[in-house]
Structure formats: C-alpha cells, structure tokens
C-alpha cells in the first residue's frame, strides 16, 4: 500500500519571535516493511539554516533555525511511503519469555547488543514497580513471549480508558498507570515500562495510522492524526529452531498498537523510533520572545494509486 502523509504543525505567537531553533522527527525511516519514497519538510518563514542528520537510533532528524522576526511558524512535512504488513506469525510457537530475556542479555551479535539499550529505563519510562505487577498477569511462567505480549496489549486496550483530557504531554507515567487512562503515547509508554520490568527490550514508535471514513462519506481534511505505539525485540537465536518457519525471524521488532488492540498492519506508517516520546518528538524547539503561543496540527494520510480515474 502506498500513502501520501502530510503533517503540518502550526505555531502562532502572541509577540514576535526573534530567533528560533527547532529539531523535527518528521521524515519516515526505512523499515523491513516500509520504504520511504520521498519526504520533504518545508518551513515557513524560510529558515536561515536547515540541515538533516541521522540520530543514534537511525532516525532522520531535521534541524532548522529562523533568524527573521516572525509571528507564526509552519512546519509542513509531506512524505510518500510504501507499506507492506509484516507476515502473520503464530504466537503460540514463540519461545517462552524467560528464554527470550536470557537470550537478550547474553546477546553478542551487533543487533542484539544495540537492542539492549531498549531494555533500560529512560526519562519518560523510568522503573515502575506497578507496571511489573500488571505485566506479570500476562507473562505467566513459561508462556510463549508473543502470546503473552499479545495479551498484554489487549489488556492495556481493555483496562485503560482512552481519554485525551486525562493527560497532557508532561504527565508522568506513574500517573497514567495509577489513573488507567490517557492517549496513544501514554499507552505506548505503559507497554514499554511493562516489558522493561520483565527485562525485555521495547522501543517507542511514532508514526501515523490511516483512518477510513464511514462507508459512503467523504474523508475530512486534516482529520487524521499522528500516532504512537511500541515494539518488542526478539533476539537472535543461537541456532535456528524447528519452529522458525512459523515465527518471525529472530533479531526483529514486533510492533503492538495498544490503542487499537492490533499488530502492525498495512495502515501503520512508521516515522521514527526511540526509547520514548522524548527521543522522537515530532517538532520541538526553543525560541526567543514570542510571549504566549498556540500549537495546532493537521495530519492527512491518503492512499496513492487507487481509485484514480
């Protein structure tokens, strides 16, 4: 499936801003199931400096700086991606989760060693004893890891209420866990903290999810949203196992979308991955002057190459 994603972030300032520096994680990364065909970030007013670099996670990071006085700022990212859904797997055939944990910590291959970073607490996902109890209800002794992980996601979906008014961008994870409500990025952090407590490696994924209008109705502009979920790392096996054919290849990440209780599908577009939201914030920055300011975001995800003509 091919998509065009347009993600526009608009800032309106009360007073003029004299100087601003910003970094953005808006250009989709390459993934086994995803190709980025093209991607462009347009900034208005015209930035004096605009550069791109790759961060330690392999994400594409845009930096720009505006040195002329401005009252509004618009960051528009337009990308075209081709997504294929990861092949389905038989969760029941996966390794017991304790073995997965041991393999991870004994990993000596480059990918495994790199993935071990994602088993550590991070600023937005610090150690959470409460998450451990929540996770252990699904991760019973000897249970196949992907089966337990599938259920953990289902329980986050079922036991946490989706409520945009319950949290904001700075709400600590402990609050989300105790009040059992939040939005997709909160749920992603919950999932990551649960897996961390078990000694497993989990990462945060930011991206988009295509939404379809009710049958017969036109799609509204700007109605889509940026999205977030989490992924679990399956370390490489020391030797190939008999069940290999039915399970995902080792050394890969399995994505879970707890907001929609589903695995990664054709409609999930990955932008960036990190330890938590803070590593891959879509747009962040620092400005001088400006006074009060407001933020608005519009996202459109459109299918390409279908139903034309």
């Amino acid at each position, binding site marked *: 499936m091919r998509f065009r994603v347009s993600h526009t972030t608009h800032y309106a300032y009360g007073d003029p801003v004299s100087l601003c*520096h910003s970094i953005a994680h808006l250009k989709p990364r390459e993934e086994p199931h995803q190709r980025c065909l093209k991607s462009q970030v347009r900034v208005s007013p015209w930035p004096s400096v605009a550069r791109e670099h790759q961060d330690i996670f392999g994400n594409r990071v845009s930096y720009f700086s505006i040195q002329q006085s401005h009252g509004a700022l618009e960051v528009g990212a337009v990308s075209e991606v081709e997504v294929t859904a990861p092949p389905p797997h038989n969760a029941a055939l996966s390794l017991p989760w304790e073995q997965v944990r041991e393999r991870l910590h004994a990993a000596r291959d480059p990918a495994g060693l790199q993935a071990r970073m994602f*088993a550590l607490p991070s600023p937005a996902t610090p150690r959470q004893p409460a998450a451990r109890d929540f996770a252990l209800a699904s991760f019973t002794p000897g249970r196949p890891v992907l089966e337990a992980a599938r259920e953990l996601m289902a329980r986050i979906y079922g036991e946490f209420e989706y409520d945009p008014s319950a949290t904001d*961008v700075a709400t600590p994870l402990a609050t989300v866990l105790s009040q059992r409500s939040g939005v997709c*990025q909160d749920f992603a952090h919950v999932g990551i903290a649960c897996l961390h407590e078990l000694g497993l490696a989990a990462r945060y994924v930011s991206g988009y999810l295509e939404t379809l209008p009710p049958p017969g109705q036109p799609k509204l502009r700007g109605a889509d949203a940026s999205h977030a979920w989490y992924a679990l790392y399956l370390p490489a096996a020391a030797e190939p196992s008999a069940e290999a054919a039915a399970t995902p290849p080792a050394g890969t990440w399995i994505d879970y979308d707890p907001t929609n209780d589903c695995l990664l599908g054709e409609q999930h577009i990955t932008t960036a991955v990190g330890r938590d939201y803070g590593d891959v914030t879509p747009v962040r*920055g620092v400005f*001088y*002057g400006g006074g009060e300011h407001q933020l608005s975001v519009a996202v459109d995800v459109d299918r390409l190459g279908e139903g034309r003509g």
Partner: protein
Amino acid sequence: MSATSPIARLDDVRLDDAYVPAPGTWDEMRAADGALRPHWQYLVDTLRQLGRGGIETRWREAHRLIRDNGVTYNLHGDSRGMSRPWDLDPLPLLLRGEEWAVLERGLIQRAELLNAVLLDLYGPRTLIRKGLLPPELVDGYSGYLLPCHGIDIAGNRPLVFYGADLTRDADGHWRVIGDRTQTPSGAGYALENRVVLSRVMPSLFRDSHVHRLAGFFRGVRRAMNRLAPHGADEARVALLTPGPANAAYFEHAYLANYLGYTLVQGADLSVRDGALWLRTLGRLERIDAVLRRADDCFCDPLELREDSLLGVPGMIQAVRAGNLTVANALGSGVLEHPGLMAFLPALCRHLLGEELLLPHLRTWWCGCPEDRAFVLANLEHLVIKPAAARSDAAPEPRVMFGRNLDADARARLIARIDAEPHRFVAQEEVTPSTAPVYMDGHIAPRPFVLRSFMVAEEDGYAVMPGGLSRVALAQDTPMVSTQLGGIGKDTWVLATEPEREETLLGLHDAQSPAVVRESDVSSRVADNLFWIGRYAERAEGMVRLLRVTAINLTARSSFAAEDDGIGCLASLLEALNEQCQANVPLPIGAEPTTLIAPTPAVLSLITDLERLGALPQTLQALNQAAWSVRERLSSDTWRVINDIERHLRRLTNQAPQTLNAALDVLDPLVTSLVAFSALTQENMTHNEGWHFLEAGRRLERGMNLAMLLRSTLVAVSAPTEEGLIVEAILGVTDSLITYRRRYQAGIRVGALLDLVVQDEANPRALAYQIQELERLVDEMPRDALGPVRTAAQKGVLRLITELRLAELDGLAQPDDPAGSRRGALAQFLLDLETGMATLSDALTAQYFRHEEHPHHMLQHRLR
C-alpha cells in the same frame, strides 16, 4: 606536662623526631624506617634555618597574597559564600624528576586510551558491538549524551583536557583513583599556588630546580588554536563558565585572563547561521572554539537538558555543522563512569595493543553477575558508587562506604543493586599516601591526592609537570572524594638542571601570537560594569549621608521640636528615607514625650542585611556585580573590593550597637569606596567597558544629588535650620571647602544651588555629571545606519539644556502664599531625576538588552 610538646616544634625539637608517618602508609618525605627521603633534604634544611617564626611569616605572606588576589573556592552552602579563601600549604610536595617521567608515561597512555574510548562511543560503537563494553554501562549512564552521537570531532582528540586523581599505595606505586574528563578543573589553582609559593619561598624555589608550568598553558593555547575550525592564529576562543555562583568561578576568571580568552556565560552567546556568536555592544562576534567549564548536559537546552539556563540553544548544531569546536567535546563526561575502570585493561590491549601502565582502583561493575556476587559478599570492605541514571528522580549520595552502613541501609542498598545492577560500581577502599603539611606551628603527615593535568597537543598528550595536590586536615579522612576543596599544595617536580624562567605573556615563541587581543566586552559585562559604577557611587553617597546624619544624632540627647538643628535632622532623615527607600520615623510634629529616637532605625540602615535598599544590600550588590566581571578588574582594584567586603562583614556580622561604633566603620568604608572610584579612573583602560562604568557612576551621582536637594530644600525651614541644612548638604557632597572659599558671606540656598547644580566645573555638581555623560554617551558604540542621535544622546541633550536654562535665583525662592515651599525647585529637580532615569533606561535598552531567556515550543501529543 613536660615543656616539650609531642608535636614537632621547629624551634625546640629536631624535625626528624616528631614527624611519624602512620604505619602501612607511604609517606612522601620519610621512608618506613624513618629515614628522610634524600630529595626532601634541601627543603627540610631550609625549614630548619627559617625556624618556626620564619615559616609563620611566610605562611602569613602566602595568605595575604591569596586574599589580595581574591583566590577563592566556593563550596555549596558555605556561609562564607563567594569569599571563601583558597587555603594553601606553605610546603610544596616534592617529586623526583626520574620518578615523574615514569608516571608521565602512564598518564599519557591513559589519556590516549580514554580518548580512543570516547571517539568510539560517539562514533562506530565498535567496543559495544564487539562486546568489549556492555551496553548497559554506557547506554544506561546519564553521562552518555545520545544527541552527541555521530558528530565529527575536530582534531581527533575530543578529550582535549584530562585530569587524573592520583595517590600511592603502601609500596609507593602511583594509582589513579579518579578520572576527570568532563571539565577537569584545578589547573588554574595549581598555577596560582605556584605563583604564591615561588614568591614567599623565592630562594628555595630557585635552588630546587623546579619544572615550570607556563609551558603547559602554552600547550593549552596551541591546542585551542589548532582545534578552532578556521585554523591557526586568528581563533577566537571563549571560556564558558556557569557563572559567579559556581564553586570554581575564580579559576574560570583567572584562566580566561591568563590565556587571553573572553569569559562568557550562556546568555552572552547566540547560535546564528549555524555558528556561535558572542553578543557584544551592538555587534555579534564570531566564536570559533569554546573552552567549556559548564558540564556538557547543560550546554544546549535545544537537544540536552531543557531546563538549563547555562548553555546556548543550538550549540550542538554549530558543532555538528563544523563551525564550532568545544573542548572537552560535548559528551566527554561519559568517561567519568566509575565502572569504566573495570574494563580499561582489556580496552587498552584492544585499542592500543599495550598493557595498561598505570594501575587504578580495583573496580567491580555490578552489571556483571560475577562482579555483583563478589560485591554483595564483600560489601563492608568496599566503596559503593552509584552511576547516575537517565531517569534519576531523587538525588542520592555519590559514594557509600560499605563499612558505614547499618543493617537497614545495607538491605536497602542490596535491594537497589538487585533492581538495577548496571547502575552500581564498587571499588576497593584505599589508604592514601601522606605528605608533610604545616599546621598550627608544626609539621604533620596528612593524606593527599594529586590531580595531574593533561592537554592534547598535535602529536600527543602533554602533562603539566606537577599539578594540584590537595590535603585533608584529618589524618584518617578517606580521600575518595574527587571534589576540590581541602587545602591546596603546590607540587614541585624537581629537575636535575635549572629551567629558564618564562611566563605566558611577552613570550618569544613563534607559536604564540605577539599581541593578545583585548577580549570583547559582551553586553552582560557592560551591564555589570554600568551597575558597578552605579552601586559604588550609591554606596558612597549613602555612607556620606549616613555619616552626617549619625553625627547630628550622636550630638543630641533629646528630640524636642524646639531643639536646635532638629529641622536639619528631619531633612536629613527625609533624604535617607528617599535614598534607602526606608521609613525612619521623623522626630517633627509628634509629642516630645512619646518620641522614639530614630537612632535604632538609622543604625539598621547601616547594619541590617535584610533591609531592602539599605547600605549592606547596596554593598552586597556592588560585590556581586564586581564578581561577575572579575576578570576585568585589576588586582589592586580587586584588593579594594575585598576591603569593602570586609567592612560589610564587620557591619553585618558583628553589627555595631551604637552610632559611634558604626561611624568607626563608615570612615574607612568611605575611604575604600573613594579608592575604588580612583582606581577605576586611573587603572582601567578607558575603553568600551569603562565608558559604561563611568556612565553608571555619573548617572547615580546626578540622581542622588537631585534627590538629596529635593528632600532637604523644598520645604522652607527657619533661617538657622536652613543654614545647618545647607552645611549638611555641602558636607554630603564634599563641597564645603569650595563653598567657603567662594562665598564668604555665610550660608545661602541660592549660593548652594549655584555651586552644586549649575557649576560645570565642580565635579560634584549636577551640571558636571550631565556634561560627562554627554561625552561618554558620544563615545559609546553605535549603529552606523542608525538615527543621527540615539535616544541616549537625545536624553542627555535635553538634560543639559534644562540645566543651563534654569533660573536658580527664582528657584531658591518659596513660591506658595505661605512662603513655606519651593514648588518650582521641586518640579525642576523631579524633572531632572526623571530625565536621568530615562537616560538610564535608554542605555539599558540600547546596549544591555539581553535576549530574554529562551522558551520551549509546545509539543504535540500523539494521540
């Protein structure tokens, strides 16, 4: 008690008898069998010759130099605040040149090794990918700055400066007990120790053939020049300090001066066009390289700690773009992870193909199961160091001694180690070696740590010959702390041949620039200088007014309305209330029997540090402003600042209880303040910065004078009282003698106004201040494309015109029907005050308007 004390009195007992090192400890001066080590012989002979009295004299001389030079080290929470003097032992630590050469090889190897590790961790991460360093150790450590990964490092030695803390084991082998890679501090203190000690022990120093330090600092200059992206001679280097509140601020200012670098704080800087710029007066000056003394995580609120106000947003981007070099490289703090030591021997073999030459503390990293088991089994013999995690909420003690833990604390620690083993490191406890220290008239062995310093030169690391030794006062202090503090000790590496004397400046060295550029005046520095001028003048005026008032008060026993001079007193109190924004009760108009004497209130204006706007706060503000531009003030000026601070402490710490006692302090205080003014006139280059200091002084003097005249002369008093008031004003403005010489015919308000308002030749007159301001404002930098006259220039012009056109004879007359008030004079003075305040605002807006603190953009939540 016998007459002989058990300690070594140099006068009456041979030094050899009472200096006994602790058994099982290496002592620098004396071997285990009690024999003096030969390279100490000359020093010991010299000390014997000097005798206790001679050493005492030199010790006092050293302390005077330290105080006069304002050498301080500020510990957090120290009640002595910014003025805690640096302590220096008069005995140097002596090291043999041959032995030093061996140590030096080990240190250079260690620096190369750590540098290679740093390059790898922020580059290919081969050490992690090959399993030589566990990812948990690096990736879980707050010192590993993820945003700094992948930046190309100029010069291939991102670890430009390296400091190693050293001590000796019982057999005399040197060991590293700590690596300083973030912002290794102390080199400036080492230099100052050397300056002081070589002055108080000149012949000892000369004859001992000590290796000099200047070469090391020349290396620092070469290193910074080479690293700067635009190469060689023209590199503009700034030394970034967290600010005057930092413990080692003295050193930052000292080094900036010594090396000829501009001392800057984050707010002085701005990133534009992908490069770093210094905000100077009305201009931006490009900075090529930053020698940073702020920890890396605070350096860029865009990509590192968002809450930091010490850095400059975009700094990492400027480095990434290749337009700026920061030394040490951002992220170098990762090498301070105490657990890294456990892996260094293997890393040394892998990276350098050599065995590690210089041993360090035995170290166990709990992230490794075998190490963890050992640590838990031997907790009581070990020192536990938690490595700060990224998600640290509560601060925790840096170091725990296993033997000090009670059962509870032990259980808690074990639980924490089990929960996050990768965050805990254990090291053996060491007994540091000892060196002789002079204390209370005798010499005693005390534990010490030597910090050695290295700088990355083109072909390898250069080691400072010597370093900063620090001794603990108590004999049994475990010296695990890597904080500065304690007593400093100069460290002499003894050469076999004498060395040529050299300093950094005026050096005939092709590598150094012939002329060190005068460093730029940033807006912040100009702002501080302006306020130094204002506070110094305000304090001086206030002291003069307080003195005249106090003398009037002490001369009377009652406060009745009919008493002679009571009207004058009331006017003076009125003026004090205006100047100090105070509320001293006036004695006029109340029943004499119920009158409360104003004495306590006046006394509190002199002594109460809590009182807003009173004298102590004004002096404190002056000191703080002076501290912030420490590197701009000459050592003589600095000595006067220290005097002023001493007077302030005398006023506030042992507050005088009577006005007479207060006067005893106010008199020398006024002398110091006058000396300060004179020094800034005579000893500062009259450059951009000075113009602002002088403008501040002139503005303040003008405003104070107008305020004084308004609060004393507007209400018309009885002729005798009026005479006293005029005399008092002449006293406060130091114009009495001129007045007497010029107007023999007694005391008149009109004549007074003539002298202190309109006389452009009287340095105390209003007109003189405005005329000076005109000259200063014209000299200030301005935008070539700006308006013909700046707002400040227009303001001055308006003031001058108003003053010159004023009809003083008319203003001296009462103008209300009752003949009790000089209304026109009041309006005239008020207009002048407002005009001067507007001028001050115009200067502030034009030159000091720092860009405000940066704000963070709102972040969109993914839903």
